[in-house]
């Protein structure tokens, strides 16, 4: 195992405090992977700064010593974006967890990157406001991580993804330069530097302060749960709802395998255990407008073959209807030791045929694939269950993943809707982009990170 030179460790400790430079193997083990556990690597060290100036000084020191840097939030990412080579240092944002400004008057907040997504909405709630992007991991994932991945979530169907809500950033480049992009409502020049930084997966620099837009909390929410015998029918219901011009806040599908896993777990939400698909439909907005929309959606579900449609009358009932969707990933642990959460997007109308073909791929490789996904925006999450210690099964998982990616791209979709490319999907990039597009991406990275010290080996294939 590589080790951090003593003088460098001493200098880093002088910047952030001796407690916040981790070099012991036992402690570094916690950082050997992110939410994608199929790839593991122990970093050279982990440094936990608490301010922009500390980040800047740490970066200056590391870049002067030619040591590459991997930014990390809560480590909930699912594409290996926070995986660090043994020669790289992880910069963790867990101590940078302060909401610096909650400006209800202008419906904005400025936060440090380590603030937990859900904590921001909780803090904004007394002002009647909330932060819209809501990744499934929102109780653990950080705003900085959301910025790096341009995260989505169930309610992005109506409200859009992270990039729509980030209005300003303080970033630190690999060389330690502190730059202010946007913020305070201003436009400095016409280029959307905030927009291109969001979703750059830690490859351009690290965001140390994030200004976000907050929304007024909707006056009312109505949630439906429709049960189907066939997942294709649930897909058809989604198409019907969207085709008639309704815009639900969320449209989520869980398949039979997932329902059974959840119902057998402590997270059971009362879904029929013999169902093959459940569709969660949620509308929000002005109360008077919701009733008619809900009735139309119920009708679409019934016409598409729903065997049962339930609605939630109270907040508690609503939470229960969501249980099968929100706790799906946790429940999977009951039926397999390892889980590969895939992420791809297809045009919504292609969902029924793509789902059938994913099922065929699972059968062909003799793999259990459970589907939990954001149906409204065509964002699929086929979850492949496997045992990492079985090398043959691991090989089949990789082959099946590749086929699923190719299938989605052929259907007019893309290789990732919200988890990012990270380490996991860089080999799939040529499925969606040509050489020129990838070269242009690399050149843009080089503008922000001329020495390629930020998050090495991520997003772009090595030969670009």
């Amino acid at each position, binding site marked *: 195992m590589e080790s951090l030179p003593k003088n460098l460790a001493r200098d880093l400790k002088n910047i952030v405090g001796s407690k916040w430079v981790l070099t012991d193997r036992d402690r570094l083990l916690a950082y050997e992977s992110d939410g994608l556990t199929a790839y593991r690597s122990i970093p050279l060290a982990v440094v936990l700064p608490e301010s922009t100036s500390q980040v800047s000084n740490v970066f200056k020191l590391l870049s002067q010593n030619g040591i590459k840097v991997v930014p990390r939030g809560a480590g909930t990412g699912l594409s290996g974006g926070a995986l660090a080579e043994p020669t790289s240092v992880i910069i963790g944002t867990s101590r940078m967890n302060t909401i610096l400004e909650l400006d209800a008057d202008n419906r904005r907040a400025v936060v440090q990157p380590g603030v937990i997504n859900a904590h921001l909405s909780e803090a904004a709630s007394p002002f009647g406001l909330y932060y819209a992007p809501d990744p499934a991991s929102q109780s653990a994932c950080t705003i900085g991580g959301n910025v790096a991945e341009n995260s989505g979530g169930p309610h992005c169907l109506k409200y859009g993804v992270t990039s729509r809500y980030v209005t300003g950033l303080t970033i630190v480049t690999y060389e330690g330069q502190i730059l*202010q992009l946007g913020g305070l409502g201003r436009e400095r*020049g016409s280029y*959307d530097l905030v927009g*291109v930084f969001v979703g750059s997966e830690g490859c351009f620099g690290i965001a140390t302060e994030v200004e976000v837009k907050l*929304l*007024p909390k909707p006056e009312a929410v109505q949630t439906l749960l429709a049960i189907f015998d066939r997942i294709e029918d649930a897909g058809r219901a989604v198409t019907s709802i969207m085709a008639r011009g309704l815009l639900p806040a969320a449209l989520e599908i869980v398949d039979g395998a997932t329902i059974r896993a959840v119902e057998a777990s402590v997270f059971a939400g009362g879904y029929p255990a013999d169902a093959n698909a459940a569709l969660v439909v949620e509308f929000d907005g002005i109360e008077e407008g919701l009733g008619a929309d809900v009735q139309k959606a119920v009708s679409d579900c019934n016409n598409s073959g729903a065997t049962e449609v339930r609605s939630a009358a109270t907040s508690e009932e609503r939470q229960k209807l969501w249980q099968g969707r929100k706790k799906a990933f946790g429940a999977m642990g009951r039926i397999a030791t390892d889980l590969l959460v895939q992420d791809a997007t297809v045009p919504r109308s292609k969902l029924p045929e793509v789902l059938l073909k994913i099922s065929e791929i699972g059968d062909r490789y003799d793999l259990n694939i459970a589907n939990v996904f954001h149906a409204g*925006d065509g964002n699929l999450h086929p979850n492949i269950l496997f045992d990492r210690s079985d090398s043959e099964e691991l090989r089949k998982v990789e082959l099946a993943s590749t086929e699923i990616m190719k299938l989605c791209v052929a259907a*007019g979709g893309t290789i990732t809707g*919200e988890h990012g490319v990270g380490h996991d999907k860089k080999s799939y*990039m040529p499925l969606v982009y040509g050489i020129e597009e990838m070269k242009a991406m690399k050149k843009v990275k080089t503008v922000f990170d001329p020495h390629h010290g930020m998050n090495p080996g991520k997003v772009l294939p090595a030969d670009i």
Partner: protein
Amino acid sequence: MTRKEKTLDTSLLREILPVKGQVLEHFGETDWSFFSRQPRAVLFPHSQEEITSVLSLANENNWNCMPAGNGTWLEGCMNTDREVNLIVSMSKMNNILVHEPDNLFVELEAGVTLEQLQVTLRPSKQWLPLDPPGKNSSTMGAIIATSSCGALQTGFGRPRDHVLGATLITGDGKTLKLGGKTVKNVAGFDLLKLLSGSWGRFGVITKLIMRLHPLPEADRTLLFSSNQAHPGTSLAHDIMHTPATLQSISILSPGLREELDSENTGVAVRILESEAAVDKVEALILERTDLLPCKRLNGSESEAFFESLKNTDTDSDVVIRIKCLPSIMKNLIHQIEALQSLVADDSLGGLKFLAHYESGILLVLIDKLKLDDDWLAQSAETLQEFRDTVEQQGGSLTLLFAPEILLKEVTPWGSLGEVETICAGLEKVFDPNQILSRSSAHRSAE
């Protein structure tokens, strides 16, 4: 060191663009000239291949090019040091290629106008919620390139929020297909975001894939009077904090009201909702304003009001766009008075403004300029001081349109500070020979 420009030989261009009318050399001064200057030729390509060939030829010969649509924005944010040999107009590439109502997207050539698009979408009860200034004859490529939007951005976001995918022919003639057809797409770095607001400096946008929205069932505008007791910014502030999503909250200056023949209107609020919800939203707004009386416009009347509002800044001599937090808008509106010195003493209504409150956009429109001997020096100084005032309060000031001599003194964006190197670096990525971005307003002189 700059490369030497070779003399523009239009016969070479005619080989690439063989159809009659594709290469225009002798045109009326008002059609494609800017600041009384004329490019050497205006080109009307019919295909991406033609654009690639033209840009490759321009690279070889070091000819400066400017992408355009129908020519509405030729003088917008112009750096006056810039010489333009060729204008490449996308107006002949104007086909709507694919519209998939079920998937809420449309793929189109960049020369399609917003009006053409909205007409096509209407039978499917869909629309693109963008309202750039001026008539709807602006092309979609130009709207994205200039990031041009109006009151609707409060509820629906900026142009960049509606773009799912695009094809760009870069300054060095490479074809980049960016983004895709789906709303969620995080494959690779988001270069698509750079196109919006790039003013053609990265390349020619040839195709766009746009996200669509269902047409709202109800369109209602509430018009409130504003006066000493109820200043526009206070009203707008109260209305912004209505617990509902509003599509526009616009403040009109007295001069603008007069021009719109809507003298009693200080604040206009647009609600786009379902039939069942629109009355409730109105009630919530009235509750916030202590039941202040207002005039109500519904359906086509509501649409027409905001249509006239967005056409107000198209002919002004100077158009300034200030972007700031809503809470400082009240101060800035008072401070606009400082710009009165640009207007001839005896002229009434020379200084107007339109604010989209929640979006933090303040458009200042100046007409009837005082063109005396000291005008230029004084105006430049006044504008620069005003820009400093805005920046001190955290905002930014962009000079969208102005007479050439004034633009030369004040520059469209002012200093970019620490991000200037990044902006210049990005221009070189897409346009290494700088045929599109030479003397760009984003860079200091070399």
